[in-house]
């Protein structure tokens, strides 16, 4: 194209082409608008499809679908509660473990580690993000589950076993195993994005803090981390989205039992896992409708959590601007 422009003599046609190039603002505006709109339309279409295809189940169960806990494909009685519980519990457990570890690792990598070590570690961490989830699931079956059933869960039972959270046989499979696998899977998201946003904090901020007599740690914790909080919170919610929707690795270790247990050692089920497990062999409109409605519920959970993330960011931004 470039050569065509150079070769063309300055004639009216070419001028209008050049003019059009100069007016690129409008073209770019239109094209990017289409791109943005397509993302929006895909989302709308997704909700529309989920809504239409879950009509049988919505008509039969109504809102009660969200609050009943039977899942009986033979009798065609369906309720989403055990799956909602399992999804939220395992994701929450995952973040509980991964947020402190991963944010800590990101602080070390950006602020304290020598650049060579930091770059190598970051490269390795980013490799983790590229590992397919079925590999995480397999590794968990061969290492994490036997470890939990032989050492981890008996230890928990012996020390904090009086809590209802740690009752039941040490099977290895269950909420705890799923939460741990999800924690490992969400590490790379939090570490790599948090590190990037910590590195993006202007060096002057650190220098100013140090010049005022702050220690290295005070400058990091009280100046750099608050400055990068938006990026860190963003990374946590990306990790949460990943945990909520994870299917393969979870279904391989959670035990796939559609009931609600207080104990983390018991088997459970998640929304994504049950859809993947049962959809291919689901016959009958009501059964398929119920599975699609579960997809709709997962979408709702994601929207609610994302909205609360936005609110959280909004709240902290206001607080931040007051300090400034």
């Amino acid at each position, binding site marked *: 194209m470039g050569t065509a422009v150079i070769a063309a003599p300055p004639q009216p046609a070419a001028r209008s082409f050049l003019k059009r190039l100069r007016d690129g603002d409008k073209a770019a505006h239109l094209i990017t608008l289409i791109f943005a709109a397509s993302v929006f339309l895909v989302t709308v279409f997704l909700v529309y499809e989920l809504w239409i295809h879950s009509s049988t189940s919505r008509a039969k169960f109504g809102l009660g679908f969200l609050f009943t806990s039977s899942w009986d494909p033979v009798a065609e009685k369906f309720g989403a509660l055990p799956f909602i519980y399992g999804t939220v519990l395992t994701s929450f457990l995952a973040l509980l473990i991964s947020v402190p570890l991963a944010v800590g690792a990101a602080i070390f990598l950006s602020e304290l580690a020598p650049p060579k070590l930091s770059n190598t570690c970051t490269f390795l961490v980013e490799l983790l993000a590229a590992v397919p989830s079925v590999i995480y699931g397999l590794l968990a079956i061969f290492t994490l589950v036997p470890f939990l059933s032989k050492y981890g869960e008996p230890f928990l039972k012996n020390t904090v076993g009086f809590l209802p959270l740690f009752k039941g046989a040490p099977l290895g499979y269950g909420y705890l195993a799923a939460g741990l696998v999800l924690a490992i899977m969400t590490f790379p998201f939090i570490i790599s994005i948090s590190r990037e946003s910590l590195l993006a904090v202007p060096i002057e901020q650190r220098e100013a803090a140090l010049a005022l007599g702050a220690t290295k740690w005070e400058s990091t914790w009280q100046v750099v981390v608050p400055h990068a909080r938006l990026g860190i919170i963003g990374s946590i919610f990306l990790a949460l989205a990943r945990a909520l929707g994870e299917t393969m690795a979870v279904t391989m270790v959670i035990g796939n039992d559609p009931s609600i247990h207080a104990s983390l050692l018991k088997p459970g089920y998640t929304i994504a896992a049950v859809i993947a497990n049962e959809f*291919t062999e689901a016959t009958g409109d009501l059964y398929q409708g119920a599975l699609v409605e579960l997809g709709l519920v997962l979408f709702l959970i994601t929207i609610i959590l994302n909205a609360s993330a936005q609110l959280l960011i909004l709240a902290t931004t206001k607080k931040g601007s007051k300090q400034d």
Partner: protein
Amino acid sequence: MSVTRQRLAIALSAILILGSSVSLPAETINAAGATFPAVIYQKWFQEFHKLHPDVQINYQSLGSGAGIQQLTQGTVDFGASDMPMTNEQLSKITKVKVLHFPTVLGGLVPTYNIPGVTAILNFTPESLAGIYLGKITKWNDAALKKDNPGVNFPDAEIQVVHRSDGSGTTFVWTDYLSKISPEWKSKVGAGTSVAWPTGLGGKGNEGVAGTVKQTANSIGYVELIYAAQNKMAYGAIRNSAGTFVRADFDSVSEAAAGAAKNMPDDFRVSITNAPGKKAYPVSSFTWLLIPNKFDNATKKNAIQSFLKWMLAEGQKFAAGLDYAALPQPVVAKEEKQIGLIQ
């Protein structure tokens, strides 16, 4: 060595080039369905293509439910399923009538992992139902001890394992339990996925096998071919004649022979708990679902000749791939059904 290889490579590529240049415009037939027989179906379609280069059958092993669904929507020429279609499913296909053709047989075996127990365990139908209902909770239960004299059972809780994914395997297992236990029938019933009263769910045969292997004092069910290929320990089940039978090709085929006497004309029959002294009780057919009318005559002829070949030559591939072959009376009855395709 390398020269021979080179020559071989040249010869092979020559064959490939020649082969591709002479091959006729193929009649492509699309099929989809059950995963359990997928291995032998692929083999059959490949072998049949060698004999009839003008016929190419593509098979997607998506699962029985998906096979039935695609057949209903008309996106495939024929389907395949590990369970017969229900009347409700058949009523949704109005343009044609769907014919069921049993192809091979499979059996399900109870596999277990009890530290310290190496014996082949005997299970009565009652004890299996009791375990899966969550009523027999310990290995040293009197019911289990009675059938297994000399076995030193631990005083340990039984960890029940089942399939978590919807599958024809689960249908056969729960169909069997429904037949032998009225309580199972009323409380749980039979289906590709059911509301299990107890236990852990594993995804696929490998998921169940892996969970059993790693969980002490557990029991699960897997397909016979999976257990055989992975050299897993599995128990015997008491059949309707009162003998404890271990699953193998013969005892599974025997179940089909026992059921063949009362075979309905549409072949939609469950052969779990079949009569016969040597019959293995948790056996099942797997079916091809073929429409009785094709608009395209070449397609119709291709499918008919495939079915004829499958019932004769095709059956010989079964044992080598760890499937049980059809008994002769069933083959004879199916051959008559081929004529119904128009």
